[in-house]
C-alpha cells in the first residue's frame, strides 16, 4: 500500500506540467537586495508564461535581466517570461533573475526560503530555494 502510494506520488511529480529545480538565492542582509535563480521546465504541449513571483521575505519582487551594453552592466525589468513547450528556461547569474528588493530578514548561506511562481495557465508553484555561498 505504501509502495503504491509512493509510486503514485512519484508519478504525480513527473506528470506536473511545470517543474522547477536548482533553486537558490544569494546571501544578503536585511534591508538589502538579493536574487533568486532556478531552472523552470515546461513539460506541456503549450507555451507557459511566468508573470510573477511572490514571497514574504522581500518588500518588492520583480523579474529582471542583467545585460551588457557598450561595456557597461545594466539591469532591466521584464514583464513576463515565456517557456516554450517541452523546454527549460534558466534564470542564472549575470542574466535573467528574480530580483528581491528590500529584504525583510538576513539570508544566511544554507538557509531555505519559500517562493510562489505564478503562471498564466498552470497553478501557482511553491518553490523552496536554498541560500548559496555567494
Amino acid at each position, binding site marked *: 500500500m505504501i509502495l503504491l502510494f509512493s509510486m503514485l506520488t512519484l508519478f504525480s511529480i513527473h506528470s506536473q506540467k511545470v517543474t522547477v529545480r536548482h533553486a537558490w538565492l544569494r546571501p544578503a542582509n536585511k534591508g*538589502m537586495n538579493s536574487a533568486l535563480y532556478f531552472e523552470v521546465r515546461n513539460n506541456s504541449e503549450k507555451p507557459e508564461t511566468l508573470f510573477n513571483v511572490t514571497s514574504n521575505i522581500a518588500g518588492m519582487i520583480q523579474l529582471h535581466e542583467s545585460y551588457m551594453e557598450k561595456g557597461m*552592466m545594466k539591469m532591466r525589468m521584464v514583464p513576463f517570461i515565456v517557456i516554450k513547450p517541452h523546454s527549460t528556461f534558466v534564470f542564472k547569474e*549575470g542574466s535573467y533573475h528574480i530580483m528581491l528588493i*528590500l529584504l525583510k530578514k538576513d539570508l544566511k548561506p544554507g538557509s531555505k526560503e519559500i517562493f510562489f511562481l505564478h503562471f498564466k495557465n498552470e497553478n501557482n508553484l511553491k518553490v523552496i530555494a536554498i541560500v548559496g*555561498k*555567494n
Partner: protein
Amino acid sequence: MKYLFRFIIFITILFYGCSRRFPEKINIARNSFVLLNQDSSNVNFPFDYKGKILVATFIYTNCPDICPMTTYNMQQVQKKLEQKNINNVQFAAISFDPIRDTPSILKDYASIRGMNLNNFSFLTGNKKSIYSLIKNFNFLVLPGDTTQVGTNPVYFFTHADKIYLIDQQGRIRNEYRGSKLDKNKLLSDIKYLED
C-alpha cells in the same frame, strides 16, 4: 628578402606578445585618497598598498547580481593564492555608492559571505574622494532612476565590470572582466609580477 620580411613579422609578433602581457596602463599612485575600511579604519589608497600586488574592483552592496559574482571571483583567487602560499597580494573592493555603503554595511556584506578579511578590504569614503578615484581608474558608473518602495528610495547603478591588477609601484598593469573573471589568467599575471 622574402625571409627577411618573414623574420621582421616574426620579431614584431614576438615583441607585441611580450608588451601585450603587461602594458602599463595607468599610474594610480600619483594621488592617494583617505578611505575607510569595513572596520572604519583609515586606509590611504593606494599609498598603503605600496610594495604589494593589489587586486582591486569597484562594487556597491545593493547590487543583486553582478557585484556578488565579482566579489566571489576575487574570493576564489584569494583562496587559490593562500593554497599556493603567495602572501604578497592584497584585495580591495571599493564602493562607488559611498552614501549607502557605510563601513558597517560593508562589514555585514563581508561577514554574510564568510569573507577572509586578512588581506581583503571593503572600502568606502567621502563622495569626492571616491569619485576622483573612480576617475583615476577610468571606471565608468552611472546612477539609475530612483523608485520609491514604501518610504524607501530604491536605485541601482549601471557600471563597468572590471577587476584591476595593480603592481607594487601602484600602476595598473592589467584589467579583467569582473563577473566573468578568467581566474587562471589573473593568477598567472600575479605570478609574473611576483618574480
